[in-house]
């Protein structure tokens, strides 16, 4: 399901912290309608890459292209508005807000977020809020969080928070959804549901870039896998190919193949 031009492309990303090079000349492409996995041992530079692509870190060098447009100079919120939405590795759910509020926050182009509209209760704002309510209900039902809709997010379990964060990101109707370890802490039964949900969304045309620790899961889910080590891309390609890459295995298992 690939098209001629990749939806998201990283070119020669480079980032140093002090004297330490965290990411060095990292390039990869993510085609529209695919699930791409980013794997590698701890310290491989996966999260840094993630933050560079989404704009939470400033690039030292390189380009991030979304639909061919270089977005490297845009702020995280601007990139998000262009359809590239992320979740966080350690859940950053808004503990002091209710589950439902968390979801609604994901709504884009909301007139109710303008002061005057909010004060006057403008019809356009109310309509948008209704749409969001319906969408949030659907998603919460799917994610099994509907019963918890009026709980504070801080009262959810770790797995439930992961789900909420995913749901919140989906509320933005992203083109490319970037998930940072989305399955960590989620119980196995739910994991299965989530995986099939991601596949369904992919089949509907959504694109995913996923950082994940669980290599087995990534291999079963992804259309393409990028293997990183020491801030560099070691290998990229279909799961079955990457799976057998000696260098990556070496990186993971410290040489014991």
């Amino acid at each position, binding site marked *: 399901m690939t098209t001629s031009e990749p939806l998201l492309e990283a070119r020669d990303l480079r980032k140093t912290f002090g004297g330490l090079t965290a990411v060095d000349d990292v390039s990869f492409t993510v085609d529209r309608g695919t699930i791409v996995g980013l794997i590698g041992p701890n310290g491989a530079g996966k999260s840094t890459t993630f*933050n560079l692509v989404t704009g*939470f870190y400033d690039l030292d060098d390189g380009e991030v292209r979304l639909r061919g447009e270089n977005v490297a100079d845009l702020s*995280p919120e601007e990139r998000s508005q262009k359809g590239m939405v992320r979740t*966080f*590795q350690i859940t950053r759910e808004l503990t*002091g807000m209710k589950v439902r509020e968390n979801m609604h926050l994901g709504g884009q182009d909301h007139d109710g977020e303008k002061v005057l509209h909010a004060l006057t209760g403008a019809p356009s704002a109310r309509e948008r809020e209704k749409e969001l309510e319906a969408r949030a209900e659907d998603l919460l039902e799917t994610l099994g969080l509907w019963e918890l809709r009026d709980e504070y997010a*801080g009262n959810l379990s770790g797995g439930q928070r992961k789900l909420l964060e995913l749901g919140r990101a989906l509320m933005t109707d992203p083109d490319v959804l970037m998930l940072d370890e989305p399955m960590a802490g989620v119980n196995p039964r739910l994991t299965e549901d989530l995986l099939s949900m991601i596949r369904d969304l992919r089949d509907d045309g959504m694109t995913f870039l996923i950082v994940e620790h669980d290599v087995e899961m990534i291999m079963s889910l992804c259309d393409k896998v990028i293997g990183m080590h020491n801030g560099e891309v070691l290998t990229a390609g279909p799961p079955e190919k990457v799976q057998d890459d000696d260098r990556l295995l070496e990186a993971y298992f410290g040489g014991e193949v």
Partner: protein
Amino acid sequence: MPARKRDGDTGNGINRRQYLYGAGAAALTGLAGCSGDGSGGGSTATEASDDGGTATDSGSNSESGGPIPIGNLSPFSGGLGWIGPNSRRGVDTALNAPEGVNQAKVLGRTVEIHEQDTETKPQSAISGFKTLDSQGVFSMVGPSSSVMPSLVGPAQDTGLAIVSPMTGTIQLDEVGGEYIWRTVPSDGVGARAQARYAYNEMGHRKMALAFKNDKGSQSFSAASGDYFKNLGGEVLTEVPLDPAASSYRSEVKKLQDSGAEVVSMTAATEVSGLFIKNYVEAGAEDDFDLLLGNDVLTEGFIEEMGADVMEGMVGQAPAPGPAHDVFLEKHKELHGKAPGAFAASAYDSMVLQALAYQKEGEVTRDAIPNHLYDLGNGPGKKVSTFAAGKKAIENGEEINYVGAGNPQNFDKTGDPLGPFAALQATDGKWKEVKVYSAEDLSK
């Protein structure tokens, strides 16, 4: 590894909590340093009860022999917090010394003082004023310049008179005579003495003004400059002195460059001390003479600065009232020490108020507006204690109160006019070099 280093990753509830504690602690520290709530002003007959209340109270109380509630609204804390206790002791001397108010008794009743603290802040002063109003005081010994302008409206609205022993500001020169009075001369009068001395006695024609950047100091220097101009002199420049500055070299230089022959330099001791130090260092003595404000006219200041340095500098002070020596003795006896600044005028304020009730024949809020002017001004028998005044009033005589701080001859806007002395630092002491009569100094 989340992006920008923010609150911890565990959810920032904890962080927030820390902030909360931090903010709480900050608020606490802040509160300790200030205080600020305020309180309100002017009640224009809020309820029908307003006027009625006064009448009822005075009706039921005046013959009952219970103590008469009188307020003392003074700075007991804040910037001028050191003055409040002086006022308290002055008032106490008026009440409890021999021939005092509580011995001779006003219409057979004693006076009970209700104190309220202005904290040297307008908000708190208004709050204190309204509290005294609600406690039913009939008049009050009043506060300092820094808060008086905020009380003018409330005093008029409630018909509750303030007789301030410590308000010098010329902002009140044209205000008062009904509910606003003072027993200390306006800065304007002292400033006129200063300007007159510079013009007539020292023969200067070109003046410059320097003042600590606060209400009172600026007001004093402005008044001096204004009168100097009236006399025919010229005011060349004005230089505010920032109290937080670590040196006034550039200000001294500016004054030297201005071509002034004499500078009216008004500031409290600290700023004055630093200014004089820089003045001497710069050799500016050759360029202009210094006229000093009221706060530094102590021998302690000369001692601190050095008699050599101070030699020849000029200041001015109200010539004390005729009853000053007697007051001094009473005060020493009662409180074991000499009266502090404004204590004598506080004494006068209390005695005058008591005499007003005696003369009214009834304890009401109208007594002050009705009688204070006549009590202070002649013609009439000169008295300087409450007991003597009461006796004369009972005999149907007119009286003229001559006070301790001042002779207390009021003008039509409630300000006392009195003689002022010019003082010069000579051999480590302030020597009286010229006394101007009230007539010399009237506008």
